[in-house]
């Protein structure tokens, strides 16, 4: 695990968005993802120290996770069960016998000199995720999902900017060391940054709904590495791939893949070869920095961990876990896709809002209006705390009551005992007689925009409506204003 700055490769910046560089159509990106999910068990994988943030440095440690002489690991039953459950949710085969192995290498964050990880007999293999796309389902194969322990946290101090190269010394906090991780490995089935984003959104939601991890990239409880190569479109070869690490949001994963794909295409088109490397993605500059060269290929000397015994999950256990797996986000998207457009369906489902949407519709709200209100206004709200009947009333009254009242109501809709009734009493101003003078005043004050609108810039309608709403202190009925403005402008 040596990490050295071996030089920096700026991605080509020209060429526009996505892969639309010169010759992009001639190349197909081939991407496999490796996702590490930190399980939110109470305790670590092989000892019963607390698992989680918040404790002072090195306060969540014991002889086992500090690798003291003679200390022995004991598996966390919850972590084993959650791994199997995740495997079931990903349509995997559950191994009748899974075995932990030792992966041997030296690094200060690895107290035993080896990481305990399932290796040739992982708990879950051969699964798939069907990702709904505008062109139908896109199948991403799950090669394996295995359980392992995390490394500790090393901080590099002094030297240049605190990065590894040139540090004066390093400091180690073993709190994170030994916490449970599930590593999920996909097949090389991802062919664009958009594919990656759609898949990761679904995967993340699946994990969150299983209740096994917070799966937050910003906190590091979900980590994504990408193995990227490109090949001539239409071919099925697999060319040299590079690994991207250190991308801590879905957006950066997409940016990193795009940058690496462009870099590889440019190399091939210049008649050069791609050299296998590991790159760190720097979100600030968009730069890819090589970590180490391949001649330092590691030899991890895996062998079965003799301090542990195999996992042979009884059939009853697997069946119980299977029964506990909720309907998958992908299936739910497909189910509601007929009633909404795909993007809306994805937003609702991957936001965990589709249940609320369905209940709100069932309570009498318009499908599209309810979807808009929920997706646009309630994304950050605890959906389970919202009473769908009350929300339905607000959705149905959205054009009738003043904007200020609607905003206030939506801000409180998740509070216990929320009632829509007081907000419904406000009537928005939709009386033309009252609105007309205001509209006239606004049009008069903005002759340039009026001319532009009449010249074809219809998008300016919103501008005029906004001005009127402002003028009325948000009490006007937006739809009535909109109709009135359009009428006047067309006059």
């Amino acid at each position: 695990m040596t990490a050295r700055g071996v030089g920096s490769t700026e991605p080509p910046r020209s060429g526009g968005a996505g892969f639309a560089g010169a010759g992009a159509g001639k190349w197909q990106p081939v991407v496999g993802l490796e996702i590490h999910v930190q399980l939110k068990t109470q305790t670590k994988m092989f000892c019963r120290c607390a698992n989680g943030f918040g404790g002072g440095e090195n306060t969540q440690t014991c002889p086992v996770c500090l690798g003291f002489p003679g200390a022995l690991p004991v598996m966390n039953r919850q972590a084993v069960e959650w791994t199997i459950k995740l495997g079931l949710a990903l349509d995997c085969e559950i191994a009748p016998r899974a075995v932990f192995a030792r992966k041997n290498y030296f690094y200060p964050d690895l107290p035993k000199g080896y990481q305990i990880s399932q290796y040739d007999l992982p708990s879950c293999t051969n699964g798939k995720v069907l990702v709904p796309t505008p062109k139908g389902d896109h199948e991403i194969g799950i090669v394996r999902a295995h359980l392992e322990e995390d490394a500790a946290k090393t901080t590099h101090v002094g030297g240049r900017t605190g990065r590894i190269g040139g540090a004066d010394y390093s400091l180690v906090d073993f709190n994170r060391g030994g916490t449970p991780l599930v590593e999920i490995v996909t097949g090389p089935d991802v062919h664009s940054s958009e594919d990656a984003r759609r898949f990761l959104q679904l995967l993340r939601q699946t994990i969150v709904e299983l209740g096994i991890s917070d799966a937050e990239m910003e906190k590091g409880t979900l980590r994504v590495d990408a193995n990227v190569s490109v090949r001539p479109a239409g071919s099925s070869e697999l060319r040299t791939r590079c690994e991207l690490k250190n991308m801590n949001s879905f957006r950066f994963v997409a940016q990193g893949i795009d940058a690496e794909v462009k870099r590889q295409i440019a190399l091939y088109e210049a008649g050069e070869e791609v050299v296998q490397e590991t790159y760190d993605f720097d979100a600030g500059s968009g730069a890819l920095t090589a970590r180490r060269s391949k001649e330092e290929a590691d030899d991890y000397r895996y062998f079965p961990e003799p301090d542990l015994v195999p996992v042979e999950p009884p059939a009853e256990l697997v069946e119980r876990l299977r029964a506990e797996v909720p309907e998958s986000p992908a299936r739910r998207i497909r189910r509601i896709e007929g009633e909404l457009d795909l993007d809306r369906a994805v937003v609702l489902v991957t936001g965990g809002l589709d249940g609320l949407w369905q209940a709100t519709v069932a309570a009498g709200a318009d499908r599209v209006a309810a979807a808009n209100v929920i997706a646009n206004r309630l994304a950050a709200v605890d959906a389970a705390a919202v009473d769908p009947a009350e929300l339905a009333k607000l959705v149905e009254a959205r054009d009738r009551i003043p904007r200020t009242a609607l905003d206030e109501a939506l801000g409180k809709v998740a509070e216990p005992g929320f009632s829509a009734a007081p907000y419904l009493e406000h009537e928005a101003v939709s009386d033309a007689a009252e609105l007309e003078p205001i509209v006239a005043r606004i049009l008069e004050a903005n002759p340039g925009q009026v001319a532009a609108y009449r010249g074809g810039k219809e998008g300016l309608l919103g501008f005029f409506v906004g001005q009127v709403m402002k003028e009325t202190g948000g009490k006007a009925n937006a739809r009535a204003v909109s109709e009135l403005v359009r009428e006047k402008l067309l006059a």
Partner: protein
Amino acid sequence: MAITREEVLHVARLARLELTDDEVERLTGELSAILEAVSKVSELDLADVPPTSHPLELVNAWAEDEPWPSLSLDEAFANAPAREGDLFKVPPTG
């Protein structure tokens, strides 16, 4: 089954042992002799024999997910060669 000097150096690097030239010399001879002796296992045709990684056929030895008290900082650092604050201090990895 002789082991070469280069192999000895490679293995020493994997094992993170800094060996003196004398040690490399001596180990090349000793390991060759030992490997010669232990290579005896390859005389047997064991294609159909399963490996034994453990003398007992135990499975599913696990613990419930319930916390136990961690060490105090004094205990965690009792034998530490170098400490800074509440962190273990090591020479730089770069």
